[in-house]
């Protein structure tokens, strides 16, 4: 039975929900059964958030099972490292090299881990860890909020398959006036790990 399980981790407000909608839509385009789970609401503002997206011949649970994630997209460095139990030695992780300090770090009461430390933690649990400067790329294009589309661009180059399906769903889900920019963001993400 075929299945691909994705987990997206980030900070509330970073746009993981739009990204997970796009990823779910692509799964449908490719003919999979798709399920998706996340927690909505203002209550998550600024806090840790995660989205689950599952593609498969048949899918029961909308939640990815721990230890069975195929791809983890970390929208923020520290958040990427919070989910080791979901990974296995085959998992691929894409990390956006961007930090948002949690309150204890702002206050000087805790240290934000070094990139190398986070990389080691991830490599301990996953098969492959790829870093991209996603927020920077999105900001250069004019809007750091496009990070989700940059991440998906990067993911698409790993998954292979037709780019068309991706761009079609992006077209369906982002406002028309931002479509060109988002296409550029997608391409920038795709090229970032070629």
């Amino acid at each position, binding site marked *: 039975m075929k299945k691909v399980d994705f987990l997206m981790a980030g900070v509330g407000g970073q746009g993981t929900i739009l990204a997970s909608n796009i990823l*779910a839509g692509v799964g449908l385009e490719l003919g999979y059964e798709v399920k998706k789970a*996340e927690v909505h609401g203002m209550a998550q503002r600024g*806090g840790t958030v995660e989205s689950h997206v599952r593609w498969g011949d048949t899918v029961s649970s*909308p939640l990815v*099972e721990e230890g069975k994630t195929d791809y983890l997209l970390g929208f923020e460095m520290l958040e990427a490292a919070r989910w080791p139990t979901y990974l296995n030695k085959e998992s691929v992780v894409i990390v956006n090299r961007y930090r948002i300090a949690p*309150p204890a770090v702002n206050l000087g009461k805790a240290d*934000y881990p070094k990139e190398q430390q986070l990389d080691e933690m991830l490599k301990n649990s996953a098969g492959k860890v790829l870093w991209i400067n996603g927020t920077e790329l999105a900001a250069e294009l004019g809007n750091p909020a496009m990070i989700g589309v940059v991440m998906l661009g990067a993911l698409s180059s790993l998954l292979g398959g037709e780019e068309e399906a991706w761009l079609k769903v992006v077209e369906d889900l982002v406002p028309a006036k931002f479509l060109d920019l988002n296409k550029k963001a997608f391409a920038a993400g795709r090229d970032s790990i070629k």
Partner: protein
Amino acid sequence: MAKKLMTGNEAFAYGAYLSGVRVGAAYPGTPSTEIMDNFSRYPGVFAEWSPNEKVSLDVAIGASYAGARSMASMKHVGVNVAADSLFYAVYTGLKAGLVLVVADDPSMHSSQNEQDSRNYAKFAKLPMLEPADSEEAKQYVGLALEMSEQFDTPVMVRSVTRISHSSTPVEMEDRQPPPPPEEPPAYERDARKFVMVPANARHRHPVVEERLQQLAEYAETTPVNRIEEGSGELGIIAAGTSYQYAREVFPEASFLKLGMVYPLPEKLIRRFASGVKTLVVVEELDPFFEEQIRLMGIEVRGKDIFPIIGEFSPALVRSCAAKAGLIEGSQGQKEAAAAAAKASELPVRPPMLCPGCGHRSLFYNLRESGALVLGDIGCYTLGFAPPLSAMHFTGCMGAGIGVAHGIDVAKVKDRTCAILGDSTFFHSGIHPLIDILYNGGSTTTVITDNSVTAMTGMQQHPGTGITLQKQKTKAVDLEKLVRAIGFEKVDVADPYDIDKMAKILDDHLNSDEPSVIISRRPCVLYTREKNPPPRVDEEACADCGICLDLGCSPLMQEEGHVSIDPILCNGCNLCVKVCPSEAIIPQESW
């Protein structure tokens, strides 16, 4: 038919629309909010945000008495507020179908408790359905309305966060909702049925009990309760999300999938139990099925294997099942435990007040005042968190004012005040405020008016002048309302003006007169107001930490000074005002 990915909440709304629901009423509450939000956008329906859940259920009941199919939706704790109405409606019965959709929140992603609403079905004596994905969410709303009319009772449909906020495929249907009647029907004036004085209610209770018997019979044959044949070694009874997780963990087992979770089909359960060697109930939260099945005298396992606390996941079901010897354990658990331990040492990231939020300025002043602050539920609850640490009680919506009054009449050393949001005030703050005046209290109540229901995602409320369906309407004026109740000491101020607010607070907290402060500053996420971020003069910065004690995320400790992240900053300049060294300099332009 085409399929579309829908969240459970979208599907509940779609199912209600397709089934001809004409009136919907709700009060927001995660994870239920988007049900009414989505329903309100369908053509030809009436939908409202009511001030609270009890009102919403009464509205839905009234519509049903008038012959219109109706829906109320709310989060689990909303049913506590609406419970009185739920109980009478079970006695009176209805005219047209009424469905109450309730969304539970196991693991409390956004709630103050994790009560299991299935208990309400048993308690109030009405049927309950529970879907396991969005397609079933759509279908079960329709089925609930049919059952409601067939059995003359409200029907509850239970959701949980992972149904409401998960997206799964839904069949888009060609059928149109049934048209409304051409002539308005006459209300059926039947006192024996609709006037619940004791004499009539005594006559209705046997009706309720008989109806439950009939519903239990119905449960035996309804297609939403189904046996899925498996090996017979292991038989699983489950509903909702637990069914989905168990399906993945026990691919070989036999299943009794319950779509109707109350009343239970005793004969069906007996038949299923007799065909399997080991019978296990997989259910989140309370042992609701398990206890009833035990009472049938059937041997069953459940809470000895799976926890009573928190939400399930495929991994949790698998590890519990492995521990109980129901399946083989998986390898690599030690390694995973070590990695998990390491990850748990990472600094946590709780939700926080947004940069620019007026609540932060207010809580800065409240902390400085040293007052004991009896709070409530909303974004402003985050004022409890360090470093502001300026709220000292939160229980349920509307509790803060009464608790403050109780503390005041019992007398404590502290100066006290109650605090609650504008939406919370309309929900359940008015009665306790009346209590203070009536009973000679002296409590100061602060209403944090950000002109929207922010916590649940920016819903309108009676103070905003806009309805759920985006119609202009009369806005209830908070100040006039509290003055009309009889409060004479009332001040309105902008929390951004911290000097003025400090004076007002001091004046009110030292006064024996009962009083109200309206702290008014629209939610910056709602208005999307953003001003240029101030700049830090690193030389002038004394590294004193006073600005960091505002707990504002763009402000960050660096070597010997602070910095401000311009992407995150909202430009409210509160840090400029509290800096004793004039090291944070406001900017006129970007």
